[in-house]
């Protein structure tokens, strides 16, 4: 086959750079599109390895999401069982009803009290007499020994500390003999949930680091297997940023897809739990509200995973390409 001699004017060096200068934004955008598509094609070109990486990362990211879901629901369960159960205030024996009414008035004026009900000694005695085994014993009493009892309902949304302060104030009130604050168990639950939240955060951090390492290692292997190609690109004038860009996009794709997988797995766990949770809710007369993962988190998880993938790819590619240059 004959080789044609070049024709026309003298080839002009530096034309590429002139074109780049005249359309820098368009060129930058085109190369990003080119890199994104090229990296996606590379990932699709080795489906098994890609799926394996995405599966490992997806599982790692699904764990904190699932724990977050479970923890949230334990909190809901605690709320359903009584976020701020009523505090029983026993007046000193012999205190008249007027004292009880005065206390009710004072308590109604407080911001942290939702309501107060008064139980007279007679009402208390009636309740006791209805309990099995008490009626005969009560008949032998000459006087009613029971005091007035106030059932103080704290406002919804009060934390354990505020409820505890309310109980302390109640103890200091005139005519009060004893205060029974049944919120201690709630305090313990809150403390446990706090520990759980912290564990989920630590776990999320560790698993995010694991995901970062998985992407980093995948990109490292990818760069190593394409050392010749990288060498050629650099010899024909590619900058490090140009060479690195497809690998950064690969990191973003790995992160994004594994984030989507993690969300799907968390939703699957939610769906699997839906049946037993409905039965549990039924047992509480349908008052048990079970929540799923918030929509914001479902959207943020893949984006955060994509950012994680980008970071892993960036760290490793910068190091690898510095060595290759």
């Amino acid at each position, binding site marked *: *086959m*004959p*080789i*044609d*001699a*070049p*024709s*026309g*004017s*003298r*080839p*002009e*060096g*530096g*034309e*590429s*750079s002139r*074109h*780049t200068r005249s*359309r*820098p934004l*368009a*060129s*930058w955008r*085109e*190369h990003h599109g*080119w890199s994104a598509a090229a990296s996606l094609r590379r990932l699709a070109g080795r489906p098994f390895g890609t799926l394996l990486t995405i599966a490992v990362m997806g599982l790692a990211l699904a764990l904190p999401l699932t724990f977050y879901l479970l923890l949230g629901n334990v909190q809901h369960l605690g709320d359903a069982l009584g976020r701020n159960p009523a505090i029983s205030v026993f007046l000193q024996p012999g205190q008249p009803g007027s004292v009880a009414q005065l206390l009710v008035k004072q308590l109604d004026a407080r911001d942290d009290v939702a309501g107060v009900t008064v139980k007279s000694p007679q009402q208390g005695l009636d309740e006791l007499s209805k309990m099995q085994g008490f009626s005969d014993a009560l008949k032998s009493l000459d006087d009613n020994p029971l005091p007035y009892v106030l059932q103080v309902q704290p406002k919804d949304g009060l934390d354990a500390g505020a409820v505890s302060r309310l109980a302390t104030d109640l103890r200091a009130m005139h005519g009060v003999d004893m205060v029974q604050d049944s919120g201690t168990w709630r305090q313990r639950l809150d403390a446990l949930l706090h520990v759980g939240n912290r564990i989920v955060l630590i776990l999320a951090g560790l698993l995010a680091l694991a995901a970062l390492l998985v992407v980093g290692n995948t990109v490292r292997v990818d760069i190593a297997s394409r050392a*010749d*190609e990288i*060498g*050629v*690109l*650099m*010899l*024909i*004038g*590619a*900058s490090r940023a*140009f060479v690195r860009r497809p690998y950064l996009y690969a990191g973003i794709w790995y992160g994004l897809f594994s984030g989507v997988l993690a969300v799907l797995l968390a939703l699957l766990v939610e769906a699997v739990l839906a049946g037993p949770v409905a039965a549990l809710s039924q047992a509480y007369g349908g008052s048990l509200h079970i929540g799923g993962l918030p929509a914001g988190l479902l959207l943020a998880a893949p984006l955060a995973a994509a950012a994680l993938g980008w970071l892993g790819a960036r760290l490793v590619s910068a190091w690898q390409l510095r060595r290759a*240059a």
Partner: protein
Amino acid sequence: MIRFDQVSKRYEGGHEALSQLSFEVAEGEMAFVTGHSGAGKSTLLKLLALIERPTHGHIVLDGQPLAKVHAPGIPRLRRRIGMVFQDHRLLMDRSVFANVELPLVIGGIAPQERVRRVRAALEKVGLLDYERQLPVSLSTGEQQRVGIARAIVTRPAVLIADEPTGNLDPQLAVEIMELFAGFQQVGTTVLVASHDLPLIKRMRKRVVVLDHGRLVADVAAEEVL
């Protein structure tokens, strides 16, 4: 234009690949660099491509003193040079078109312009009908021509080639060299490292002869026998 001024290159370990080398290739001139294996031909081309830096001396390429080109400027400088390698250095998983297009993608040339230029370059090397094929399906000579098309597609002012006919049969080697001579005729400065003396003599171009890193002869085109 290429100018070497008292250039020496000593590698770690003490081996001196080039010693006090001075010569100049004018704009639009074609010259061969020849010598036995280890004479310093490849080192000379590596210095031009800024793969290596000289230990002493100055190199000027297309008006640019290379000593003033720092790491961030190297890619830009390489985009002004067309490089052809003995082993072609093509990307075997990409089509002929994509290989030739690469320098234009790197240079940020618009897509339509890329298509036009790639086709023009492939036409010059006689491979327009092969643009969709993978390099692996081509003969060695055809692969080398793809490498040449890639080198000229950016219309570089300087074309350097390291043993471009090393793997080719004599007839193909002549065709490739005539292609380089064609580029020189339209104003490109061409520097070819080769140890194929019969071919060099046949081309009747200037010859710079190296021996152990030293310039031992600089023969003008008209003096080549």
